[in-house]
């Protein structure tokens, strides 16, 4: 189809004004920081993430064992469970963990535990993140079956594997025969997490560390940390 399109005179005026809008400069240092963060993406990011996760789950999961199954996180189902919990309508198959009437466990920054659920061998901890959508941390026993996840999302850095879907805000990683799936991450949260840098409301690595500690306490996993 040709480009010929009759525009009215006023449209040309509006178009001309818009066409003269100036370039917008990013804040000083923003792009340099973006570039500087690249090595973090390329190297120590997931290494740090892996270490944090291992530090938690080596101690917390304690459900290791060579006979653990390979797990392919059911991403759609987890996303649905996350959405339901975020909307205040948790999956009926999930049972809220009794907190014995105590207050929600607060995490550093703006992250605050809202609820912990479990179903069979899957646990879900939901965290409010201020104005942003909540984040769910799912954990289930078994190592990740990486080959069954879409290849384009795989990251293998310094021996630590992770799977990332930045569009959906999903991160999957493995720690000591447990599969951890984080759902509901905003782009900035995911970026912070991948870069290992603290976010405005507290580092996600810290949040995950505490989240899994919460799971350990709530679900009775051995906490050797």
């Amino acid at each position: 189809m040709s480009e010929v399109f009759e525009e009215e005179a006023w449209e040309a005026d509006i178009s001309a004004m818009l066409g003269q809008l100036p370039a917008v400069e990013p804040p000083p240092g923003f792009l340099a920081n973006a570039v500087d963060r690249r090595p973090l993406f390329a190297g120590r990011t997931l290494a740090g993430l892996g270490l944090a996760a291992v530090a938690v789950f080596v101690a917390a999961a304690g459900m290791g064992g060579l006979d653990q199954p390979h797990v392919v996180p059911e991403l759609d189902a987890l996303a649905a469970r996350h959405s339901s919990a975020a909307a205040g309508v948790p999956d009926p198959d999930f049972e809220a963990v009794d907190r014995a009437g105590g207050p929600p466990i607060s995490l550093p920054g703006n992250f605050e535990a809202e609820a912990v659920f479990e179903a069979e061998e899957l646990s879900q901890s939901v965290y409010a993140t201020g104005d942003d959508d909540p984040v769910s941390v799912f954990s289930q026993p078994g190592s990740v079956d990486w080959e069954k996840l879409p290849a384009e999302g795989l990251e293998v850095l310094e021996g630590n594997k992770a799977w990332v879907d930045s569009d959906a805000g999903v991160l999957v990683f493995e720690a000591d025969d447990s599969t951890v799936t984080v759902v509901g991450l905003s782009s900035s949260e995911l970026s912070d997490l991948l870069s290992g840098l603290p976010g405005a409301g507290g580092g996600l690595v810290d949040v995950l560390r505490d989240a899994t500690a919460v799971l350990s306490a709530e679900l009775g996993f051995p906490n050797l940390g």
Partner: protein
Amino acid sequence: MLALATPIGLSSPVVENRKAPDPASIPTWEEVAEDYGRFLYSLAYRLAGNHHDAQDLVQEVLLRVRRGLVNYKPGNFEGWLSRITTNAFLDRVRKQKRRPTVSMPEDAENFIQGSPGIEAEMAAADLPQHLQELLAELQPEYRAPVVLKDVLGYSYEEIAANLDIPIGTVRSRIHRGRGRLKEALSV
């Protein structure tokens, strides 16, 4: 008459001052951030409407670019970046719409929220900023094609491919988007 600065379009200094990209080569992620960062930021700002959201959007875009470079086929690299940026922008809008706390107006004709009134007249003294504010108030579905057409200078065909919508829809949205801007400017 205000002396308006240069557009961020394809003929802008933002692009001209950059080394001419080799269409046969695929830049590294670092080169994208360094060579196209200002272009991405400017586009993100025009779409998002403020610096905070623009920074988040650029971060998201850089993540997608980093992942997408693996499969990128040499071609119109800037067009590819624009497509990623607009898609990331619209994805964010869709995600925000799912939040129950914010409801969008149901009146299809109500493309602009609020009335500029006297504040608009005062703001008109700074036309680029005023125009940007009005642009930011357009519904995202109209804002994206208007930005691509009038700020970046893309063709209707390119915009249709960029947004993956029919060309007739592109024309309609641009026409109506401009119309709402005209109405707002004449208040």
